[in-house]
């Protein structure tokens, strides 16, 4: 019974469908379509301003149906264009594959290792990093290399020996026991502690500037400050010896770059002169900067600031000055190169510096006009997107500034002590190495880091190249397309310096270091690797004397054994078996 009922209903429905889906004529389709279209079109009239639209459509259709069609197409195209993703890549370049072809390509694909394994010739670089047991300072205990206690440490950046200063440690402990160690928040949220505000005030009053901002790490400071101001289309005229942080800042900011020869003010002037006609034509002036360092990290040379300031004012450029190595070192009170040359800090628009070197703390800072600093609080990525400096580190820097300001005869006691030791070391080392056929001092006399490098004649005689890396960045203003490859000569030259370091450590119980520039990351050519003697006031003149006595002999011993390019093969084996 129920089954027949079921059959009955199904037949009924099929007939019903059949009647409605009779093949309609073309006319009836068009009429239904236009009916419904007009029906919906009438709704348009209910919208505000729709009446006018309706009238327009009707009128245009009556006059010229083709035009209406054209307008409709245009409208559809507009909508489609609007909805299309903006980040669509250039489709014409893409090759079309079927899913199976993609699978095959995936099977075929053999990616390289994530990182290249460290090979035999590179491994010694890791092994030669000194490891210190207990506190770091002017005298340390070494756990590796030549083990020993009371090793004189000519390798640290704590130039004013403040890291172990009693007052500073006391203040640091006070802060830790009221606020803990970490700031736990970004400065724009709840990470600005009272001590941070005080430190900003302290740095500003120390540097005689309006305002300051502090960063959680020294190395990131320039890399973050510069791109906050320099954008695409802006111009930077840059010293061709700047440090890696600035190199990366330039790359990231995508600005136009002109280079001038390292610390060559005549060349700078000719570059500025050459750029001037083009810049004068700019309808809207773009930002222009001269980018340089106080004491150059790579070369230890001192910037010729008076000349630079003159040029900058003449050609109307702003100056970005990285004082990482000169703060706490130069000038009567350690205010850096500006004080050293007696130049008003207001002449330099952006000053950045490190608090991890002379100040015996950590982090970096930037100081200058209120406006410039304020802009960074929202636009400098490393400030906005990272946690604040630990509060105790801020207090350490503030106290370090107080310590520096203790004066005698209008000069900071500790800074003049450092300057005295620097010039003592520099002078004696210079006389001592004067006759050396192998090595020479290449930096400026005021730098706390004394740079020694193999002499060019000697380097040539053993077949070392003029420079390492590539000049692409200097030549074109764009970094080289690919990273520098491993250069064995670079390793070998560094290894010669390491041998000197090891021998000094073994025979004198003195720790030196060398420049550890990473060839693969450097966008600028590296001229010569350096042996570094870092002076700090925890050491005495006697300590310096004990470094110098017989220093030349050690160098002679090592370098005379490497005289021809062939000797490098033996050296290479030594390097592998380090």
């Amino acid at each position, binding site marked *: 019974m129920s089954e027949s009922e079921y059959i009955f209903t199904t037949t009924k429905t099929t007939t019903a469908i059949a009647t409605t889906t009779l093949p309609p004529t073309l006319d009836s389709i068009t009429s239904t379509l236009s009916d419904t279209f007009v029906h919906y079109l009438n709704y348009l009239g209910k919208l505000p301003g729709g009446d006018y639209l309706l009238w327009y459509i009707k009128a245009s259709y009556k006059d010229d149906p083709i035009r209406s069609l054209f307008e409709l197409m245009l409208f559809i195209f507009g909508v489609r264009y609007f909805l299309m993703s903006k980040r669509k890549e250039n489709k014409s*370049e893409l090759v079309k594959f079927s899913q199976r072809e993609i699978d095959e390509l*995936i099977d075929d694909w053999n990616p390289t290792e994530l990182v290249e394994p460290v090979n035999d010739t590179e491994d010694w670089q890791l092994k030669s990093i000194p*490891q210190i047991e*207990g506190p770091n300072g002017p005298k340390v205990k070494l756990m590796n290399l030549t083990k020993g206690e009371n090793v004189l440490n000519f390798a640290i950046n704590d130039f004013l020996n403040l890291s172990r200063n009693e007052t500073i*440690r006391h203040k640091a402990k006070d802060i830790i026991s009221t606020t803990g160690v970490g700031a736990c928040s970004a400065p724009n*949220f709840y990470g600005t502690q009272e001590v941070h505000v005080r430190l900003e005030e302290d740095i500003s009053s120390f540097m005689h500037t309006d305002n300051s901002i502090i960063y959680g*790490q020294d190395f990131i400071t320039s890399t973050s400050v510069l791109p906050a101001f320099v954008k695409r289309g802006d111009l930077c005229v840059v010293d061709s010896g700047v440090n890696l942080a600035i190199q990366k800042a330039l790359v990231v900011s995508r600005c136009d770059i002109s280079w001038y020869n390292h610390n060559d003010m005549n060349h700078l002037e000719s570059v500025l002169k050459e750029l001037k006609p083009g810049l004068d034509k700019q309808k809207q002036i773009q*930002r222009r900067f001269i980018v340089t360092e106080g004491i150059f990290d790579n070369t230890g040379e001192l910037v010729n600031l008076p000349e630079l300031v003159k040029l900058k004012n003449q050609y109307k450029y702003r100056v970005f000055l990285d004082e990482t190595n000169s703060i706490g070192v130069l000038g009567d009170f350690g205010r850096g190169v500006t004080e050293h040359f007696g130049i008003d800090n207001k002449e330099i628009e952006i000053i950045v510096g490190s608090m991890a070197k002379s100040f015996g703390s950590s982090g970096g800072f930037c100081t200058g006009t209120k406006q410039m600093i304020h802009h960074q609080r929202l636009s400098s990525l490393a400030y906005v997107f990272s*946690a604040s400096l630990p509060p105790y*580190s801020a207090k350490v820097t503030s106290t370090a500034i107080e310590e520096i300001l203790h004066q005698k005869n209008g000069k900071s006691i500790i800074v003049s002590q450092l300057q005295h030791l620097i010039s003592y070391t520099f002078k004696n080392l210079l006389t001592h190495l004067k006759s050396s056929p192998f090595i020479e001092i290449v930096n400026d006399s005021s730098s706390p880091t004394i740079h020694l490098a193999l002499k060019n004649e000697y380097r040539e005689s053993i077949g070392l190249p003029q420079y390492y890396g590539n000049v692409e960045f200097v030549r074109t203003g764009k970094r080289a397309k690919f990273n520098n490859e491993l250069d064995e000569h670079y390793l070998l030259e560094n290894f010669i310096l390491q041998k000197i370091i090891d021998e000094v450590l073994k025979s004198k119980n003195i720790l030196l270091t060398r420049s550890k520039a990473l060839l693969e990351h450097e966008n600028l050519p590296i001229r010569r690797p350096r042996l570094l003697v870092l002076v700090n006031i925890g050491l005495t003149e006697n300590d310096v004397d004990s470094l110098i006595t017989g220093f030349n002999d050690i160098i002679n011993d090592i370098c005379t054994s490497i005289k021809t390019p062939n000797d490098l093969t033996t050296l290479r084996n030594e390097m592998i078996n380090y």
Partner: protein
Amino acid sequence: MKKPSNTLPQAPVDDRPPEVLADLEFGKLTSKEYLYVAKHPENEPYIKSIEDEPPLFIYISTYLSYLILIIIGHIRDFFGKIFKPQEYSHLVEQNGYAPWYDGFESFYERRMKNRIDDCFARPIYGAPGRFIHCFDRKKVGKSEYEYPGTTSECLNLSSYNYLGFGQSKGVCTTHALKSIDDYGTSGCSPRAGAGTTDLHLDCEALIADFVGQEDAILISQGYGTNGFVFPSIADPKTLVISDELNHASIRFGIRVSGAQVKVCKHNDMKDLEKVIRNAIAQGQPKTHRPWNKIIIAVEGLYSMEGNLCDLREVVRLKEKYKCYLFLDEAHSIGAIGPNGRGVCDYFGIDPKKIDILMGTLTKSFGATGGYISGSKEIMKRIRLSYATNSYGESVPPAVLAQIISSMKVIKGDINPGEGLERLQRIAFNSRYLRLGLKRLGFIVYGADDSPVIPLLLFLPAKMPAVSRMLYDMGIAIVITAYPATPIVSGRVRLCVSSALTKEDLDDTLRKFNEIGDLVFLKFSSGRAGGSKVKGKPPRWSIEDVLAHNVEDCKKPNLGEMP
């Protein structure tokens, strides 16, 4: 009554007894019931958190609000430039110098953010623990503040103090103080120079062991960690596939490295697979040569959304397509997982399957800095070619001591039981607050177990309203908007901490309930859970919420409960 001053006053001395102060930094657990072990159930699929949407009129009014703000801003700029040129002098050329930044670029900051400037960067003093102490201030003029000299003690839902190690008392502080005595205040030198001490080596070994990798390297800042690690692992022949909501530091790092980058949709595994497949098939642009390698860069816990990444699926894809995985655990390490070992621990995945595990020590450990960890071979290369390692400062001793001691507390080596309690408290607190807010009718994003709880406000005017009202009620919260989030979804970001007690959270819920009614924030549809009756939007009364929340928040999948 002190006279208001324009400079920040000295922090007052707190002379309350030490026990009281300690309790203000880390509240004592009030009942054993308020603990929970958060782990993703094995063999169960990943639950994608549902992002509820408000009624259409909220969207429309949000857009309208921004439109009005923008129009008024431009009108003010237009007339301001004519009638008050001195106020705009910094935006125009001056004696041949271009302005520091142009007016268009700074429009958002000048005309929008500046109006609610007082809700950001409130200066504080003392440890950012359970309570945070803010200096009261009043805005005068355009950007100046006046300080009446008073302070406010606010419940802290703003700091990344996940496990409550933002303390100035306790075992970690003792260690930190001792390290200052023993080691001094500075790292003194780059690590590759003469800045490596036994403390650094111990700390790195401990971190490697903690995260379950063979080796780890420490860097003095979290942002800097990401910023300079990419040049060591990626070159221009490398493709990095980056989640669209990855942190700025990852994007910065990729830019520094010069690697090619492709962005995939946030936490969308289908899109990720599509991007990988196409990338392998197409090869490098123009030349169509195959990529040297492909690195997938994702975060464990996204700090603005509160989402956990679908790690199992990412690992599966990475293995299937021979890619490498870079996992940023900035927010998840310590805060997530039954043992605090991050998302790997939470999903039960062997951390060794991940090529590079990055994390920060700023958040859960109350220290600062970051780490990179991986296999011995990979770390050896990174140690050699890490720019910060050769050029930047090393981590200072007190920070190392804080990392070592807090990590040992979590592991149970120091004060056994304390670490576990902290882990289980944050897990409970996160779920408790999240469920409570959902039931009250707020739109909250993110995974059930995420300690980051974004509460959506949408309208720009509601941001300062909520922030100021809660501040007056004694709760410190963070508001974020464009550019950290999409322009329509301005939000409050709550960061839950182990230092908070259940009573603190009740108090928070009560106050949010009040504010939610006052400024109209309860517009969830119930899609993301919390409804009393299935299908109806959740609008529980605060009494009902508090009566059932403890047991209910421990049930699995808060998003699906009827």
